[in-house]
């Protein structure tokens, strides 16, 4: 299986590569459209600030490629947020894959949310074998509200989407690569989705 982690200069991609290795698979890092198109599974990471991450994505022409991909794609953290219509962070237009606008936490809780929260109302192949209210690790200041495409949700002053799914596109607000054995199982579920 060919697994490609999109390498567009936004964030901690070593951890994802290592997490995949621990599951017994190998992933390559690439920003080459032909390599990404030929992959069986694509991971779209992202850490940092939305508008600068989107600029980097555009600079490598990947903003048009990602929405056209046909194989399973998993956006993680900022990667997931960039797959939405828009994010308040830096007033940034997203890739429009998930039909939702990303907002800043604004309900009296500390920002960023850092730590382990629970996921509920699970409904996607991503969560096969995962129980309701399992703990996952998150670090973020912006969130996607609950919408039709929500396949896992959490509460941090507000109920919000911790995972989204539409067609071949998946997104997790949490970091599966940092969420201990629960995260490893979710990552394995993604890698084992049949194309």
């Amino acid at each position, binding site marked *: 299986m060919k697994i490609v982690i999109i390498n567009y200069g936004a*964030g*901690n991609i*070593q*951890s994802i590569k*290592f*997490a995949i*290795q*621990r599951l017994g698979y190998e992933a390559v890092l690439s920003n080459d459209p032909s390599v990404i198109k030929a992959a069986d599974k694509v991971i779209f990471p992202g*850490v*940092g*600030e939305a508008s600068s991450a989107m600029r980097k994505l555009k600079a490598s022409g990947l903003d048009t490629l990602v929405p056209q991909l046909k194989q399973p794609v998993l956006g993680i953290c900022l990667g997931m947020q960039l797959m939405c219509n828009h994010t308040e962070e830096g007033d940034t237009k997203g890739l429009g894959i998930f039909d939702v606008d990303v907002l800043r936490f604004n309900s009296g*809780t*500390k*920002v*960023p*949310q*850092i*730590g*382990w*929260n*629970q996921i509920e109302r699970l409904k996607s192949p991503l969560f096969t074998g995962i129980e309701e209210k399992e*703990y996952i*690790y998150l*670090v*973020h*200041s912006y969130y996607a509200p609950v919408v039709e495409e929500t396949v896992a949700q959490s*509460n*941090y002053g507000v109920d919000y989407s911790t995972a989204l799914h539409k067609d071949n596109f998946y997104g997790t607000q949490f*970091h599966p*690569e*940092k*969420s*201990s*054995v629960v*995260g*490893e199982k979710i990552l394995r579920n993604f890698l084992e989705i049949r194309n």
Partner: protein
Amino acid sequence: MLTKRIIPCLDIKNGRTVKGINFVDLRDAGDPVELADIYSKAGADELVFLDISATEERRKTLANLVLRVAEKVNIPFTVGGGISSIEDVDILLQNGADKVSVNSSAVKNPQLINDLAAKFGSQCITVAIDAKQIDGEWKVHLVGGKVPTELNLFEWAKEVEERGAGEILFTSMDHDGTKDGFANEALAELSTTLNIPIIASGGAGNTQHFVDTFKKGKADAALAASIFHFKEIEIKDVKQELEKNNIPVRI
């Protein structure tokens, strides 16, 4: 519900763990990677590595260690100690660190916090503050608490937040090593006046101290070193005590 975090801290010198560590089942008590793995399996929510090396090779050795930890460990970890530039942070994050912590360098050059937050995002920038009370006022100290400054803890913490830090690791030098409990009054003031997470550090001696620092000190996370290294307290005992007191934890 977001849970309170329990964070063991490992002191690192030349790529090895320092401060006697008392794990009978360790093959190599000096190997930070093996220790990190044990802590992650024991229920640690996060790890902090504090580098206290002072050699020319320091950067390279630390980067190599970070890479080895990232390869093995499936929970987040923060790296601190001697970080003073964008390049320092870039190397550590590229090797797989989730967060970095800056301390003295931020006091000497506060703009560093803005620069790091702008380049890497607030979420991966922790500012560590060491402070102790002098004539009733909390004063920030440098170089592991040895050198006093004129900075007031609460004013500096506010500035740190405004400059873009994602979280604050507050160590009370008055409590560190005493095993008498955390500096809960100062912590509560920090936690209620600031809008970013506060990690309590210094003073952990028993499980009740953790309950107190979350209830009275309103901390978001608690860090400890020696009590975990010497197995005076197990992480699972801390978490069970917290759960008994209706404090949300990941068990």
